[in-house]
């Protein structure tokens, strides 16, 4: 996902795992305090996300906002806020935690608006999911492009059938690292190997070229 947004000038990443992305360099880190329940929201303190956006309203920025719990509720608040900010890319890690599968009515309204019509405010919405079948179908169906990396999960393979030919679905469990099946609206699905050697996963050693003697 970081590779996807590398060229975007204004990037906000939503991080529910608070693990590898905590030490991401070159990014501002926001840790809001959330109060659940009726009348809940983010506490109005120095960690409130609005303070960050107020001081970066016209600037380019790269930030990670970390959520420890109440993922769905906090993404709903974030979508409300970023629609007012506008012109940014919202990258959500582990979409299934924020918008799990369910009926159309279970998707919160601000998230739905951001995903479906956020382009009116200059929003780009992208996300990752280890198990695509656990992501709400509206998010999947509104995605203009999906990259399917190696997966053996039965429900995810079943979900992939709607996007690519059978032969490519059968290849999903055995895809090498960094290789994916690209499904883009209006184009046939294809095997994409362009990212081999280009992706650096935080926390893992970089690939090294073997010397040939």
């Amino acid at each position: 996902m970081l590779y996807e947004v590398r060229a975007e000038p204004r990037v906000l990443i939503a991080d529910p795992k608070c693990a590898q992305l905590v030490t991401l360099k070159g990014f501002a880190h926001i840790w809001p305090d959330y109060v659940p329940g009726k009348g809940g929201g983010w506490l109005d303190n120095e960690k409130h996300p609005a303070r960050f956006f107020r001081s970066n309203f016209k600037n380019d920025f790269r930030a990670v906002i970390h959520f420890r719990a109440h993922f769905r509720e906090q993404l709903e608040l974030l979508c409300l806020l970023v629609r007012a900010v506008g012109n940014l890319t919202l990258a959500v890690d582990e979409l299934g935690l924020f918008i799990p599968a369910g009926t159309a009515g279970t998707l919160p309204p601000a998230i739905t608006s951001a995903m479906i019509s956020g382009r009116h405010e200059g929003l780009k919405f992208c996300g990752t999911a280890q198990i695509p079948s656990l992501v709400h179908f509206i998010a999947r169906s509104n995605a203009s492009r999906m990259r399917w990396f190696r997966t053996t999960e039965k429900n995810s393979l079943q979900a992939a059938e709607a996007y690519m030919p059978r032969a490519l679905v059968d290849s999903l469990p055995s895809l090498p690292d960094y290789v994916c099946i690209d499904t883009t609206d209006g184009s046939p699905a294809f095997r994409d190997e362009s990212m081999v050697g280009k992706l650096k996963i935080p926390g893992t050693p970089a690939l090294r070229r073997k010397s040939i003697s």
Partner: protein
Amino acid sequence: MENQVGGDFENAAARVTAAVPESEEEKPNATAPAEAAAAPEEKLIVKPEWALAATKACFWPPAKFIHPAYALQDAEAVPVVPPMQKALQALADKIAPMLLVRLSNRYPEFWDLLAALGLLYIQKYNYVSAVIKKEEEDRVANAKPVTGERVDEKSDTAKPSNAFLI
């Protein structure tokens, strides 16, 4: 699209911010004494007469629709006035403001419409009251004087002015 920190952003920021808990609002602070001194002037104090009227009003429906003997006399209502006054005071101090804030925040379009319609109604009411008053004045001015004479079929005054004889 040009970004501007303005009303839309501040509205969104307010919507995503947690409401201030009551415990923090009730904490004493340096400005509290001054505010407390100013508060009684703005506070609505429920008078005993209002409590008496409210108590008697509670018995208006049965007096109207069941039997007039249900109507409450002042002496009968007096014992209920203290608790009624207390309840009305609580309504004015706590319950009504809370309800107003909750409802107005939830349905702002509806309350704006209600306010606009209310204002229009007041304007219309004032105008129609003046029209009715004018009509009444005209009616009184044009009414024929009553002389007290007995009117029967044989008297001249009994003849209709525009009779259609078939």
